[in-house]
């Protein structure tokens, strides 16, 4: 039996609204994209607050670009702080990514060079974000198709360094770990042992697809348009076996929506993986005692 207060939820998407609201008995938590509400009219904020009054909500930012040697603009931090104040989420989160440079918007999450400069820059940005919003964000590892050039630190060392410097917890995206492991040649299970388990507080699961490179080889794209593959559930079991924290697991789906039954089935698989991991943890502790 899983005695941890683990929760399994779903990413809020307008296309899924009806399905989500009619199955709230099986959804512990909703994750809302914060950026969609930064400049929203008051009526939309009221709708979000109504939602938050019915189910636990977490806010997830996608556009700040906190993992950068460049200081994040105050305006972006203030928008998030204002929304956190209005919605009072269980927690808020952002990505270990940069998204722009000297006015050029990349339009998505990009992996910065994993260096001491970006580590220190991220820590500074996170300190300012926490001060303004009144709480530290959880930070999510990202998937990258390109091995970030100029890196002097491993991905696990860089992430661990930022978490230690900023005192932030980790939103561990397991499909990103799986994709980066496949694309850049490391074992995701070893990666999980290299990051601080005590910092893992929330988890993302998602799916993707293989795309062909010009040289004919394939890389895994984290597109959130496909079902969660079995190896990600295996990694979820590993994470649950490693972590002593209660975990919030969010299933992310950004399009090509399947039936609500299909999404609920994947959430059920997530609960089962959590239970298997927790059982392993309990057995391991009993053996140790």
């Amino acid at each position, binding site marked *: 039996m899983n005695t941890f207060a683990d929760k399994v939820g779903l990413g809020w998407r307008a296309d899924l609204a009806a399905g989500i609201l009619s199955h709230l008995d099986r959804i512990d938590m909703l994750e809302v994209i914060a950026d969609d509400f930064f400049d929203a009219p008051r009526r939309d904020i009221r709708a979000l607050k109504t939602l938050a009054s019915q189910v636990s909500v977490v806010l997830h930012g996608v556009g700040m670009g906190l993992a950068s040697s460049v200081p994040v603009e105050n305006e972006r931090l203030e928008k998030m702080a204002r929304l956190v104040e209005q919605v009072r989420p269980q927690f808020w989160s952002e990505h270990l990514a940069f998204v722009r440079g000297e006015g050029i918007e990349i*339009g998505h999450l990009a992996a910065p060079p994993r260096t001491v400069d970006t580590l220190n820059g991220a820590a500074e940005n996170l300190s300012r974000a926490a001060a303004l919003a009144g709480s530290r964000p959880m930070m999510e590892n990202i998937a*990258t198709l390109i091995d970030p050039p100029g890196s002097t630190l491993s991905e696990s060392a860089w992430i661990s360094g930022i978490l230690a410097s900023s005192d932030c917890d980790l939103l561990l995206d397991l499909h990103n770990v799986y994709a980066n492991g496949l694309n850049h040649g490391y074992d995701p299970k070893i990666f999980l042992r290299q990051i601080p388990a005590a910092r893992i507080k929330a988890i993302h699961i998602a799916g993707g697809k293989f795309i062909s490179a010009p040289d004919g080889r394939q890389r895994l794209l984290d597109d959130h348009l496909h079902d969660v593959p079995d190896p990600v559930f295996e990694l979820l079991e590993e994470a649950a076996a490693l972590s002593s924290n209660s975990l919030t697991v969010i299933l992310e789906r950004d399009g090509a929506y399947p039936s609500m039954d299909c999404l609920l089935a994947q959430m059920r698989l997530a609960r089962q993986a959590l239970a298997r991991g927790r059982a392993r943890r309990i057995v391991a502790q009993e053996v140790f005692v």
Partner: protein
Amino acid sequence: MSAHSFEAFLARIYVDVGARARFKANPRGEARRAGLSDEECTALEDIDWVGLEMAARSFARKRQSNLNRRRALPLWDRLRQFLVILSKRLRFHEK
């Protein structure tokens, strides 16, 4: 300052097809022209070329997808209506 320039250079070659083509034709020359250090120029010469092309295409698709999503924002209006109806029903049942 150089770390900022390095990130800006990456953003440019991820987004701008012309800048990427010039960089592919002359990696060190383009990096040097952007004022990057010798060490950074060398890092860019050793870039994951396959990953660069795949990432750039992926970013372009994402930008287009974000644009389409913004155009479809009236969905939130439909959601708001749904929530208003739902909360009224809940209040009715509570009474």
